[in-house]
């Protein structure tokens, strides 16, 4: 992993930067930045419209990006819909799912550890369609209670939407168990993959979930591009939720017909450069090896856990974390810790991490959260620990 940092220009520009906020967004390799620059320099045009060579080239690049994403998670090309991010992907499902909800079923099952992105859209759907929200509990160690899942997922369950990994605790959920339980009850299954896509091999066919959502910017791609995978037969039955150009087959002044998949769900000019950047990021991951990313993440996590737990008066939330650690220093507000670490150019996150219900369960003040990626090192963790000791000295 020695020269990995050199592939990320930000570390050249910001020499002292220690970036431990990778669960929020990752830094971008030069390859990805150049791919975007190259598109705007050489191939910029709108897609699916122009009769000219440039339009054709841009369309090709955009569709190639879709193929790259599809291969990455083992789906069909037309099952990949480009969105802005995980949040938009889940909003799309929640807005369009009505027509495929199995008849007579009235319950949506989520977990207590969801990010607001996989919570608030369902609250709105529940309100609109008079459905009931039900939450699978977390245990005392903040892991998912699978016994509770067995109780909560029932013949009334219409939808089960679960995060693959908590963005607060870093605990990975055994989603295959959850998907199995849901399948037995003929419920629709949705996985929020925002936190696992960067370091776990995802095979949607094997998982057999109905939908899988993730963001490009958490896997070294640009912001503003996200992905929704959905099973073809389900997407075909769903109605679009945004309307306009590109998503229609025919249109008159009075009415319109919908385009085929995936265009049906991609109204207006999409984020073409973003999709190209994302595809380049995926190629980079494929060359680097996702198993290497995963291995590095696990090593750094266990090293950091060991070092952190040696500090007096530290509370670490949960166990068996992967890539993310939430903690608090005794009598110290997380905001103060983050602010003092910032002085040493150490970037961490402090607060509720857009997942207020679980974060408040951990600590009423929120937590400090560190999260790792390929370019982080044990030396950086050592430096972090040194600074945390200093902070303990400053704020009793």
């Amino acid at each position: 992993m020695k020269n990995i940092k050199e592939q990320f220009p930000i570390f050249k520009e910001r020499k002292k930067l220690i970036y431990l906020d990778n669960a929020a967004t990752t830094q971008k390799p030069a390859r990805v930045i150049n791919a975007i620059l190259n598109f705007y320099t050489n191939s910029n045009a709108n897609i699916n419209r122009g009769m000219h060579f440039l339009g054709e080239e841009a369309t090709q690049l955009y569709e190639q990006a879709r193929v790259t994403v599809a291969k990455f998670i083992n789906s069909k090309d037309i099952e990949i819909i480009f969105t802005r991010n995980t949040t938009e992907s889940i909003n799309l499902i929640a807005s369009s799912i009505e027509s495929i909800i199995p008849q007579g079923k009235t319950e949506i099952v989520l977990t207590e550890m969801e990010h607001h992105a996989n919570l608030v859209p369902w609250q709105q759907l529940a309100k609109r369609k008079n459905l009931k929200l039900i939450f699978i509990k977390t245990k005392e160690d903040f892991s998912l209670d699978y016994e509770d899942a067995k109780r909560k997922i029932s013949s009334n369950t219409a939808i089960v939407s679960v995060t693959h990994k908590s963005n607060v605790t870093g605990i990975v959920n055994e989603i295959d168990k959850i998907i199995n339980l849901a399948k037995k009850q003929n419920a629709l299954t949705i996985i929020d993959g925002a936190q696992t896509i960067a370091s776990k091999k995802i095979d949607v066919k094997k998982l057999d979930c109905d939908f899988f959502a993730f963001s490009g910017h958490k896997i070294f791609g640009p912001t503003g591009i996200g992905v929704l995978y959905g099973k073809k037969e389900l997407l075909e039955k769903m109605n679009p939720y945004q309307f306009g150009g590109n998503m229609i087959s025919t249109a008159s002044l009075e009415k319109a017909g919908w385009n085929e998949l995936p265009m049906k769900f991609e109204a207006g000019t999409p984020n073409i450069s973003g999709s190209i950047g994302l595809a380049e990021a995926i190629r980079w991951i494929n060359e680097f090896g996702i198993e290497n990313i995963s291995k590095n993440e696990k090593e750094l996590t266990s090293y950091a856990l060991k070092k952190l737990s040696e500090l007096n008066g530290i509370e670490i939330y949960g166990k068996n974390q992967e890539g993310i650690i939430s903690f608090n220093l005794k009598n110290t507000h997380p905001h103060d810790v983050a602010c003092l670490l910032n002085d040493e150019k150490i970037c961490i996150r402090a607060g509720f991490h857009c997942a207020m219900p679980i974060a408040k369960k951990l600590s009423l003040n929120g937590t400090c959260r560190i999260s790792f990626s390929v370019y982080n090192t044990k030396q950086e963790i050592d430096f972090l620990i040194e600074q945390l000791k200093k902070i303990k000295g400053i704020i009793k």
Partner: protein
Amino acid sequence: MNLAIDMYRENILENYKNPKNFGEIKNPTHKASSINKSCGDEITISLVIKENKLTDIKFTGKACAICTASASLLTEEAKNKKIDEIKKYDKDFSLSLLEIPISAVRIKCALLPLETLQKAILNNGK
């Protein structure tokens, strides 16, 4: 460099560890709460106002050092002052009580007590 270390000077830390006017008033005439959404600071300020004068003020809440110190200093400053005078307190005044430069990301923390105090004065329904 070391902006934060400057922020955590003795004056701030003393007011954080031993905040003045921390607690609740049993029968306040005015009361208000505010939350800083980005980090979760929560402050509640209760007041006793008699004849246009702030005769008692206390605050409670869970907040970071900057926010708590700011609340401590602001409540101490406002106590026994005329309401008309307190209504004139602005951002610059509140920040000046801290006697240190506050970095942009922490301004919200530092100003939460002022926001809450002004809200409380208008909030005579308790």
